[in-house]
């Protein structure tokens, strides 16, 4: 890969980050809703202070958050604070900054999403490749069909049905939460086992919900590759089936799938956010949804921006890794 493409991709990344932060800056300011006013109106209703004081409080907060400055200056401040990883403070959990909240929740989300994405990618591609491989045994080829049917069902719906059948009806696994109520978090093996038992259902929902897409696209890819001359040539050379499958067929069919992985990241994150919220796992999704419920607006913007930047960076990263897989690009 030449230096020029590298710089091009990095410039593109900067552009994406800039676009995302500009959108998250302007949308709330276009809207008629004033989050600070709304938050304090809520507090005033529950009887913290008299309504007359509210105007003073709102004005003070507007000044604290710089909302009384002209729009362009707010915008410049905002972009420069993002460049310093400063996302502001949480209203609801006051002394904590948004960055601290994200860092607390991030390991949970990372663990769940990376494991499920990798597993789903591997299982889906293998099943799809086998389903299109004429020499594979018939029973193995039909294994893929039920997964293709699941393809249209969002992971969250699968999650509800899994909770119902596995956790509610047969009581095999816990309904929600990250560990059993009453246990003390520690590094003991029992606790670790308990935590992983709580992660099984969310992980299964995410895997079942995404694997069908990989099966389908890989099967389509496999059908195309089979007709290629180099596969025919390998067969005529008398190579054994395993070598042809691995080196001639799978490897070439994988290339577009890696691009697909980069494109799928944003939908994976989307489902992950909602799944975490539904199972009450301590990840970014749960922090985000509780921030939505309590009008904790800086947390909402911070998490959205953080996830967006992460996804965009990963996408560009996958693209930069592409030459490792495809020698044709490397030699250009």
């Amino acid at each position, binding site marked *: 890969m030449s230096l020029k493409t590298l710089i091009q991709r990095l410039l*593109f990344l900067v552009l994406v980050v800039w676009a995302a932060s500009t959108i998250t800056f302007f*949308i709330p300011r276009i809207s008629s*809703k004033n989050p600070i006013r709304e938050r304090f109106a809520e507090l005033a209703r529950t009887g913290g202070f008299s309504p007359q004081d509210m105007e003073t409080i709102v004005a003070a907060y507007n000044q604290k958050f710089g909302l009384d400055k002209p729009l362009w200056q707010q915008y410049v401040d905002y972009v420069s604070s993002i460049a310093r990883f400063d996302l502001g403070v949480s209203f609801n959990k006051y002394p904590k900054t948004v960055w601290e909240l994200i860092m607390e929740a991030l390991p949970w989300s990372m663990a769940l999403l990376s494991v499920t994405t990798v597993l789903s990618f591997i299982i889906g591609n293998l099943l799809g490749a086998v389903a299109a491989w004429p020499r594979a045994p018939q029973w193995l080829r039909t294994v893929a069909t039920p997964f293709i049917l699941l393809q*249209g069902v969002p992971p969250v719906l699968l999650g509800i049905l899994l909770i119902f059948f596995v956790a509610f009806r047969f009581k095999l696994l816990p309904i929600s939460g990250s560990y059993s109520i009453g246990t003390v978090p520690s590094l003991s093996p029992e606790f670790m086992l308990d935590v992983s038992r709580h992660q099984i259902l969310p992980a299964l929902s995410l895997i079942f919900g995404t694997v069908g897409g990989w099966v389908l696209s890989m099967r389509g890819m496999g*059908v195309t590759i089979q007709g290629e001359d180099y596969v025919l040539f390998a067969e005529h050379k008398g190579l054994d089936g395993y070598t042809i499958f691995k080196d001639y067929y799978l490897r070439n069919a994988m290339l577009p799938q890696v691009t697909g992985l980069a494109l799928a990241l944003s939908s994976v994150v*989307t489902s992950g*956010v909602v799944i975490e919220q539904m199972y009450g796992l301590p990840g970014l999704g749960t922090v*985000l949804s509780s921030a939505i419920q309590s009008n904790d607006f800086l947390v909402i913007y911070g998490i959205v921006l953080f996830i967006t930047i992460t*996804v965009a960076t990963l996408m560009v990263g996958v693209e930069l890794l592409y030459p490792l897989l495809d020698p044709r690009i490397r030699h250009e």
Partner: protein
Amino acid sequence: MTTIAISQPQVVLQPGRLTLLLRYLRRNKSLAIGLLLMFALIAFTVIGLATIDHKTAYPLAVKPKQPPSAQYPFGTDFFGRDLLAAMVIGMWQTALIGVLAGALGTLIGVVLGFISAYFGGFLDAGIKGICQILTPIPAFLIQIIIAGSLDRRDVTIYTMAFVVVLLAWMGPTLVIRSQVLTMKERQYVAVAKLSGTGDLGIIFGEILPNLLPFIVAAFATQVFAAVFVSFYLAVLGLGPLREPLLGNIVWAAQKQGAFFNGWWWWPVEPALALVLILGSLALINMGLDELANPRVRRTE
């Protein structure tokens, strides 16, 4: 001695359009099953809308927390809504959001895709660039911000559809753009151009009719995406809270700990309904894809 039967010139019966359609559906199984499911769902909603009392879909109308029984076939929820009525109205509203957002998104996509591909130049570079920059941004998260910036009391079914559309036109734009790019190089377009047809004549007379299968396929994809996204937004509590939208029912059930309290029917029913809706849309999509792209036709 055998007599040789001289074959009479037979009148070949040209099959009617309906027979042809049915024959096609028999070959394109996913389209057939998808359409069948869709008709069943529409029938359920239409019959339901005509027969049920709409008031029972809203809180405090019936006895709360009743499991499915003869009187309430779908049970009732914590707030005293008859879930049968709530499901009927929720299906109707979900369909409304899907169709509205799908149609608007496709329309914007077709117009932008056309402008971009047909006129080219800096317009093309601009539209394509914006689409490419917006694509890596998870649209759902931006939609969370938009929906979260709205005043909760103002959120209606229509604002939901609007929020969904705002970030859902990039897909169809890129699809239509690439199709128009190949079509405008075809010979029939060149012939039309040489015979003096104007830009509008070529767009509406030559390209648009050939683009129709792609537009229909893009529309089906958009409806699927819109139902999907509006469901996720509602599950996070960003929907029109008063309405029994399917996602809202799930959100309310989760919030009241329906599974912990044993009210399993409350979240499971809307979930199953959505599985059916999205499943039928996915099957229709697959079928239309086969119709629109002859290359994927009959891969097996």
